[in-house]
């Protein structure tokens, strides 16, 4: 009868089991399934094309929608915020931080309803239509982006669809300027469980599968990817990361604001 050797028969196999699990886990997580944005949201171009194919109400062509002045007629297809609109309760944009010419529409739905306040779309000098790219911002090519990341223009397409935007940057950065109507949900907000702003944002969405765009400072910033992952984990399947972040959004001249109704 052989003697029982605990080291050889238990400890060494136990270490082997642990090391094998560790090795597979590391390969799985960091090689096979990078932890960027793990879920595969609906292809954003498919989403945007579907909207274009459906066509706006009133016989407008998709091209008509490109004109901001026409968007006021496009309300039937856009998500309408529930009444009372809590965003109206928030403070208005601070005039101290941005010139009036760059004041963006502050509500996705009503962004272009009041045409009196909307810059003339024919005016090529309005920041809304002319990319503010004087500082030489280099937009990232879509082909070089990781899965789940989208370009500024794709993000703007989703913005026009009424997608929710989530700002993952610091509070002071958010307060100094953010995508119009974006919620601020930072990674640290998930430390205590479900962030309050997440409930607020969800209440504004028709359903959980509505597109959500997360952004941070662009470039190497990682917060948007982490927040996107957290949103995935809370049941939002179609979360996209705006790759070029807020600097890209501003450089493209898209609606931005510094009102902070949901800090």
């Amino acid at each position, binding site marked *: *009868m052989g003697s029982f050797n605990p080291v050889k028969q*238990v400890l060494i196999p136990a270490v*082997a089991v642990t090391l094998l*699990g560790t090795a597979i886990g590391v390969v799985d997580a960091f090689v096979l*399934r990078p932890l960027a944005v793990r879920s595969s949201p609906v292809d954003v171009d498919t989403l945007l094309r579907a909207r274009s194919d459906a066509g706006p109400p009133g016989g407008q062509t998709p091209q008509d929608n490109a004109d901001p002045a026409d968007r006021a007629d496009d309300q039937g297809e856009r998500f309408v915020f529930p009444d009372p609109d809590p965003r109206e309760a928030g403070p208005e944009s601070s005039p101290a931080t941005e010139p009036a010419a760059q004041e963006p529409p502050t509500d996705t739905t009503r962004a272009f309803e009041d045409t009196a306040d909307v810059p003339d779309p024919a005016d090529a000098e309005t920041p809304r239509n002319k990319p503010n790219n004087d500082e030489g911002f280099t937009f990232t090519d879509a082909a070089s982006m990781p899965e789940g990341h989208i370009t500024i223009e794709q993000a703007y397409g989703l913005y026009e669809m009424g997608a929710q935007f989530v700002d993952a940057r610091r509070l002071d950065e958010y307060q100094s300027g953010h995508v119009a109507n974006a919620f601020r949900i930072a990674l640290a907000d998930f430390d205590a469980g479900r962030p309050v702003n997440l409930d607020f944002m969800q209440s504004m969405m028709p359903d959980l599968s509505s597109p959500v765009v997360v952004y941070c400072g662009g470039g190497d910033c990682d917060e948007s990817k982490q927040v996107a*992952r957290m949103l995935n*984990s809370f049941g939002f399947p179609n979360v996209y990361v705006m790759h070029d972040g807020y600097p890209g959004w501003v450089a493209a001249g898209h609606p931005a604001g510094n009102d902070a109704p949901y800090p």
Partner: protein
Amino acid sequence: MNTDTRPNTLASDLAGVRSIGTLAWLFSRFAIGGLFALAALNKLRGPNGPDLFYASVKSFRAGEMIGLESTPEWFLRFSVSVTPWVEAICACALLLGVYVRASALVCAAWLMFFIVLIASVLSRGLNVDCGCFGELSPICGKQVGVCNIVQNLVMLVCTGILVFVDRNTLTLDRILRLGTNDPSLLEPVSD
């Protein structure tokens, strides 16, 4: 010490099941193996399984246990990646009966860590989801509570049985002649 000197046949295995010790050992093996398999599968492949588990682990704020303000991101990623795979391998080993004692020892270590972690979460008054079985809650509620500690203690007792009671009943070990300590079990069956 293995005292089982019965011939290496399935019939002898089944005959040995009549003893209470072997029954307890078999129950422990399949219960722990099954629960670990369920936990691993839900963390790896369930709807949003990995993300849910990540969210749960993050909300545990394990870093506070050692005085850190927040849990390091690398630790979160590492533990979320590795835990389900170690669970899966241990589950496979237990269910198939390969290196049962070694796998049970790893499970016991894991369970002790979970018990400490959950006790710490409860002592800090955190209200978090367990994420132990992904979106499922087969035994306790979704929220971390005393039930999870009791559940893990019961599972720890089962792993203790597997570690300290040496059996080879219905194991692949016996077939593959791995991890046995009795040469008589290695002899070919001769009728």
